């Protein structure tokens, strides 16, 4: 209350607002991830070059660079979803402030550009942090690896290509902030004066075109996957169709998130029971169904990819059994396991970024619902009930997206194994036509995903629950909605 301790708002005060830290964090993770992968690629190339007998450095390097680009691109994409969501939420929270500025004569475009500029600053901060952290981790990690294996490799630590992830992150964060703040345009100056009740659900603009594109992509992708699986039964080229089909259908799923995630959320919400706390928790996740859909789709993508690699490798082992009998060479199963482990870990980075998005959005949601929480506390919602509501809200989104991811990942993993190795029994003369095996779902991945789900739910609800339970009803009621 004392004005003496309050400093003059500085030009960087907005950086301390909720949601900004998360934007920096996802940018930093993507950048560091990219820098580490590029450094490892360079290190491996140097290692190969140092061996006199080995050939094909350039080809191996090109392949690794493509894998790096795909993996980092994926994490930047998921990060962009998180950032766009953060900005959409920030705009919703700043509606009154934006309305006041509009009332005083500022244009919507100007306000939106100011937000995009903040995105640019956040992206730059994230990229710089990530670049430094990634370089540090690479130098230390590869040094330790060299010592552990007793090898000496001279590799270039600082190279121009390391700037690529940073540049991509900065540009994408900037663009995501611009896209996310789209709703600045619908804030009217009058909203600074009105005191209307909040709508329980944001009216989602029907995106016919987008959903149609999504449907076309999914149908086309699934058809190609089918072709891949069938072709894979007799020839090794099946995976090419399957890969294209997988990429298309997956893009369709990401694009159509606002179409199928809300019904899924509604179905899962029904599982929590009929108590008023459960109903409010379920309704909260649907309040901004577009934001919830985007928050969920990031997790769906991460879990799908992680599950896909695990299921693909376990299902492939079934083919090896068909062809090689009970005994599979230890070397083969080890290399399959290593590949699976590495890929799972690498795509897991996207899942981590998506998780940051979930935590961030739940925190923002609680901060923006202060007044409603104050009302509920006044009416007799206990601290324990507040906590339950927040945990269920988090569980709702996490469980829904993990369930979709597990289903999708199993389907994709099975399709991958089937189109990669389906021809082997035929080629080995063990079968007339294509052989189909049931998808194998490793217990380890199920346990990992379930544990990660629980951990994410707890993490995602700890901070918001603490925020929510610390609110004094009196102060919350006085809060600006």
């Amino acid at each position, binding site marked *: 209350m004392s004005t003496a301790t309050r400093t003059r708002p500085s030009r960087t005060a907005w950086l301390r607002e909720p949601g900004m830290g998360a934007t920096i964090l996802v940018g930093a993770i993507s950048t560091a991830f990219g820098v580490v992968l590029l450094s490892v690629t360079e290190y491996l190339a140097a290692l190969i070059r140092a061996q006199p007998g080995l050939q094909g450095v350039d080809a191996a390097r090109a392949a690794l660079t493509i894998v790096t680009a795909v993996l980092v691109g994926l994490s930047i994409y998921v990060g962009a979803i998180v950032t766009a969501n953060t900005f959409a939420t920030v705009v919703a929270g700043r509606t009154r402030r934006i309305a006041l500025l509009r009332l005083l004569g500022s244009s919507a475009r100007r306000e939106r550009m100011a937000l995009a500029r903040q995105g640019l600053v956040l992206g730059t901060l994230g990229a710089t942090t990530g670049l430094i952290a990634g370089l540090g981790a690479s130098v230390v990690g590869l040094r330790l690896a060299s010592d552990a294996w007793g090898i000496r490799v001279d590799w270039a630590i600082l190279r121009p290509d390391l700037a690529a992830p940073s540049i991509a992150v900065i540009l994408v964060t900037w663009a995501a902030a611009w896209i996310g703040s789209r709703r600045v345009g619908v804030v009217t100056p009058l909203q600074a004066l009105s005191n209307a*009740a909040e709508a329980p659900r944001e009216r989602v603009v029907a995106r016919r075109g987008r959903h149609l594109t999504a449907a076309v992509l999914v149908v086309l992708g699934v058809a190609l996957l089918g072709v891949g699986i069938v072709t894979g039964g007799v020839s090794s080229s099946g995976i090419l169709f399957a890969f294209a089909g997988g990429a298309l259908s997956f893009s369709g799923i990401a694009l159509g998130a606002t179409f199928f995630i809300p019904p899924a959320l509604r179905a899962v919400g029904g599982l929590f029971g009929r108590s*008023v*706390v459960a*109903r409010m928790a379920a309704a909260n996740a649907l309040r901004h169904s577009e934001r919830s859909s985007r928050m969920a789709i990031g997790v769906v993508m991460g879990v799908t990819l992680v599950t896909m690699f695990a299921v693909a490798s376990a299902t492939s082992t079934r083919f090896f059994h068909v062809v090689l009998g009970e005994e599979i060479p230890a070397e083969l199963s080890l290399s399959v396991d290593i590949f699976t482990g590495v890929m799972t870990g690498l795509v897991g980075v996207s899942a981590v970024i998506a998780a940051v998005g979930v935590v961030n959005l739940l925190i923002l949601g609680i901060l923006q619902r202060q007044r409603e929480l104050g009302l*509920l506390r006044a009416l007799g919602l*206990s601290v324990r009930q507040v906590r339950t509501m927040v945990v269920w809200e988090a569980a709702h989104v996490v469980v829904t997206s993990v369930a979709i991811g597990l289903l999708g990942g199993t389907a994709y993993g099975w399709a991958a194994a089937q189109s990669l190795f389906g021809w082997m029994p035929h080629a080995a003369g063990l079968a007339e036509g294509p052989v189909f095996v049931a998808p194998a779902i490793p217990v380890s991945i199920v346990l990992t995903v379930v544990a990660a789900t629980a951990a994410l739910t707890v993490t995602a609800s700890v901070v918001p629950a603490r925020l929510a339970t610390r609110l004094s009803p009196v102060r919350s009621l006085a809060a600006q909605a």
Partner: protein
Amino acid sequence: MTISPTDDGLAARVDTLTKTFGDGANAVHALDGVSLTVRRGEFVAIMGPSGSGKSTLMHVMAGLDAPTSGRAWLGGQEITGLSDAELTVLRRRRVGFVFQAFNLVPTLTAAENIRLPFDLDGRRPTAQEEARIGTLVDTLGLKARLHHRPDQLSGGQQQRVAIARALATAPDLVFADEPTGNLDSRSGREVLLLLRGAAQEFGQSIAMVTHDPVAASRADRVVFVADGRIIADKPAQTAEEISSFMLRTEGAAA
């Protein structure tokens, strides 16, 4: 006016309440020795300019805020010194609230909002309470609106839903904080008539914080608060009497 804690027929009372924000030279005395009783079935208006301490007084009486010193009772029970959990249950069962705006949970329908205190308590209304809710819904003209969400209701309708919720549990005291502040004059009149009717017909005790003399003129009793003190405690007044009293005190202060 010290009251022994065994007095019956009282809905609420507070004894020499003080509430201080901040300390030292910056200290603000929101309440400065306030004592007040509200009898059962009484409709009291608490009036005063912004910053007079009237809202703080209401918050302490409703178990939303703790005083710096002094004691408060609701019905026969002392509420000063209760834990947050005990106060939460107390508010849920024995206090009703009608705020100026944002009274309803936006994700719940009108019917769900009315039943919220029971649901939070984890119980179904008794047959008697069901009958009471039914009567309230009829009286307040909400029958056709029960399955609407707050954003589908007009301001006046939202306020009537809040009144139904506040009255449903037959609480010891209903606190109304500027209940007409956000309404057009016709809806505002309706809301005041409903509160007045609740006091007369159901014997509901109501404390209404307002700075609108017309609203206050509907009450049985008008308590004037200024600078954290009660400066006058009068029986039912006309809007003109209230206005002129307020103008006089404003003039004296200036």
